[in-house]
């Protein structure tokens, strides 16, 4: 549905705004996860076909009529794995943030002066 596509794009833009404008590392990670959600919404909404139902065959959808009644299963499969990867990446980033806080005692990226040119 187009509405959900637009919603996904708005979420992506908000997330990028958060990542760029905030200086706290945890807030940047939250922005990243918002972008993640937005991208997943866009991908699933592109696979949606009007008035169709989930690609799981049971009493409601028979084998014969499946071709005319189900949505695209490929984006679903893609997004499903992407969500799990998103969790792994988020956990890894948080581990970095914890380590960084242990070394520097601060979560603000302005306090990390060594890498600035």
């Amino acid at each position, binding site marked *: 549905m187009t509405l959900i596509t637009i919603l996904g794009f708005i979420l992506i833009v908000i997330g990028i705004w958060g990542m760029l404008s905030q200086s706290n590392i945890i807030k940047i990670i939250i922005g990243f996860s918002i972008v993640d959600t937005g991208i997943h919404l866009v991908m699933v909404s592109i696979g949606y076909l009007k008035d169709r139902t989930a690609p*799981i065959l049971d009493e*409601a959808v028979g084998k014969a009529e499946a071709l005319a009644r189900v949505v695209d299963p490929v984006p679903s499969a893609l997004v499903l794995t992407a969500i799990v990867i998103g969790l792994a990446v988020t956990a890894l980033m948080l581990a970095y943030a914890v380590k960084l806080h242990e070394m520097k005692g601060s979560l603000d990226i302005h306090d990390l002066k060594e890498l600035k040119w």
Partner: protein
Amino acid sequence: MVNTLYTIAAMIGLAALLLAFVRMIIGPGAANRVVALDVMTIVSISLIVFLSAHFGRGIYLDIALVYSLISFVGVVAMARYLERGL
């Protein structure tokens, strides 16, 4: 007639979700937001069951079940964080 009643019920459920979200916005403090999130999850479980009936697919109910278990774990984690027991 019957369908209109169901639709009205779902709309009232959405209104409840919105009201809980207002509490989420005004807070004050994280603890109140956790309470609001708890209420929002419970309302969402109802809405998922409604969507399952609306689309006529009984298999969607599994998601409501996952929600009722996972939201419990999440709220307990937040509570333990607040009382410094994590």
